[in-house]
């Protein structure tokens, strides 16, 4: 659904309300002025009609002559049946006012009077120019008032959003920029609006709580990862002692093996989680521009043998100018994990390829499409197989490293190949 700013919305509602009020009041005023004109003219017409009547009674004999002088009186013949049918009727008409020599609005009323057995159509008229002018003026001024009001309200709301709501938008901006674990360095936004004050203090409280929770969680992970290492080392050493003891091994091979394997797994897990925490703590911030070619070649050399033993092959297509701004240690880990991943899941349908262009690093390997959701592969412990030898942390480690160094890592699948590409996110 489309969304509007609060003030735009209020302004629109205001304008609609004003328009409604305008139409209602205009309607009321026109009705009122019309009825005023009607009352005024009706009175006049009644007076004239009565006057005619009186004149007819008083001057019975010479009425004919007098009537001729009277303006607006017309003897009806049989042909005038239309008038007979319509009368009495009222109409407004523009007529030349001879006194002022201008065209004025007149109201005309035609009635049929019966004088001495003869039917006359009597048309009376009254100048209503002033009334209609007043009515038009009224409408005009009220329209002007409405336009000005609408304009003022719109301007005012613009001013309000600029001034009154500025703290609100600044608080929003702070909320937007807030990242868990980073806290807020920005000072409090100054505002005298109690709602905003409340919002800001709630937000700050929430941030404090989040930070506190995050810190505790991090501390917990850190402690766990670190503190389990020594007990695990002891378990491992003791198990190695058992492995050297043929009496024990004859009876308990599988048990000892399970203990040994799981202790190793846990130990690797702890080490990697610890590494993740350290990375997130920004302990590896020795950012330099790493020219990748030599590093990649070294890594490829280190795994070449393993690749060969797995009947895979590895190809490189390196661009000398490719470089990344990253802590060299983190770049090592990144490469190690991507290579490990490629070797682990690569099939011999084709070779593992590492290529760099001037700004992209790509590692691809052949293999069946993922049985899991591609968008989730960077999550921790999200793995298609649950083999105990896979930690399920490699790709999330890669993702974290990229995130922290403004690099963008993408996964795609095409032509039977799993492709991971790393690009500078700032470009």
């Amino acid at each position, binding site marked *: 659904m489309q969304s509007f700013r609060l003030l735009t919305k209020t302004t629109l509602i205001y304008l609609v309300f004003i328009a409604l009020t305008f139409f209602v009041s205009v309607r009321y005023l026109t009705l009122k002025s019309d009825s005023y004109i009607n009352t005024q003219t009706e009175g006049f017409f009644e007076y004239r009609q009565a006057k005619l009547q009186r004149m007819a009674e008083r001057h019975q004999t010479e009425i004919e002559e007098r009537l001729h002088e009277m303006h607006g009186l017309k003897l009806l013949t049989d042909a005038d049946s239309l008038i007979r049918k319509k009368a009495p009727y009222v109409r407004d008409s523009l007529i030349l006012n001879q006194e002022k020599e201008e065209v004025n609005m007149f109201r005309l009323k035609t009635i049929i009077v019966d004088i001495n057995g003869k039917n006359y159509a009597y048309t009376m008229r009254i100048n209503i120019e002033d009334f209609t002018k007043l009515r038009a003026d009224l409408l005009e001024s009220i329209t002007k008032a409405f336009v000005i009001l609408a304009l003022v309200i719109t301007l005012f709301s613009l001013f309000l959003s600029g001034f009154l709501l500025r703290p609100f938008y600044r608080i929003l901006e702070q909320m937007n920029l807030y990242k868990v674990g980073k806290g807020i360095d920005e000072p409090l936004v100054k505002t005298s609006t109690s709602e905003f004050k409340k919002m800001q203090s709630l937000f700050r409280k929430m941030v404090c709580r989040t930070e506190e929770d995050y810190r505790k969680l991090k501390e917990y992970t850190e402690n766990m990862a670190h503190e389990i290492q020594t007990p695990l080392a002891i378990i491992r050493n003791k198990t190695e002692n058992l*492995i050297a003891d043929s009496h024990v091994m004859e009876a308990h091979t599988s048990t000892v093996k399970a203990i040994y394997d799981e202790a190793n797994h846990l130990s690797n897990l702890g080490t990697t989680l610890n590494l993740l925490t350290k990375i997130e703590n920004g302990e590896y911030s020795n950012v330099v521009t790493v020219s990748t070619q030599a590093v990649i070649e070294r890594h490829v050399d280190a795994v070449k043998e393993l690749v060969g*033993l797995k009947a895979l092959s590895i190809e490189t297509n390196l661009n000398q100018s490719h470089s990344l701004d990253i802590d060299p240690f983190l770049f090592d880990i990144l490469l190690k994990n991507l290579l490990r991943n490629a070797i682990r899941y690569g099939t011999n349908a084709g070779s593992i390829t590492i290529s760099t262009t001037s700004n992209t690093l790509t590692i691809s390997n052949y293999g069946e499409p993922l049985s899991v959701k591609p968008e989730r592969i960077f999550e921790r412990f999200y793995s298609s197989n649950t083999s105990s030898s896979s930690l399920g942390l490699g790709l999330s480690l890669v993702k974290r490293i990229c995130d922290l160094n403004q690099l963008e890592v993408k996964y795609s699948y095409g032509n039977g190949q799993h492709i991971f590409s790393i690009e500078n996110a700032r470009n």
Partner: protein
Amino acid sequence: MKILVVEDNYQLAADLSSFLEENGFVVEYVDTLSKARSKVSIYTYDLVVVDIGLPDGSGLDLISDLKGNSSPASILIVTAKNAIEDKVRGLELGADDYITKPFHKAELNARIRSILRRNKFSGSNLLQFGEVKVDLLSMDVTVNETPIDLTRKEYDLLVYFMYNAKKVITKESIAEHLWGDHIDQADNFDFLYNHIKNLRKKIIGAGGKGYIQSVYGMGYKFSD
């Protein structure tokens, strides 16, 4: 050969001590930096194995002490994995080598022997087990005086075995020694099997005995 182990965890220290004693070293251990400092000021050791993270300070200070007293002791530092700062700092201060926690005892043994061989000129550069001889300087391997040609990995593997002769070495330990953490453990074992098969074949082919024995599918032992 006298070794001082500085490690704050009692279990770990005791385990290491007995392991090193089995390997023919004289071992003492202390659990704090201050105790270690007084020990090294009184006695002379051939090697000090020092954990960087000690309850009363950094093991790095002990290195400075030793170097300041121009002690002849070799130094092996134990660091947490990924603590590259400690590693670099330790080596700069004059440590001979580092090993990251958690480590395999066989690895520790190999490192210790390699350090001692390098630093003590009295130490022989020749490893021998039965008819198998390894010259650590020229990297020549002979069986019954017949030279055999080994790949780099096979050579490393053989040296690792001979340093830890007669002891069970787990597959994990060997894989880590040969490949570090480059790829998954599970994959390593197949490769490892290949290397071991080839090495065994080469030794037997030159008239040697099948010294490399599999131990319950969990590891190997270089033994008669």
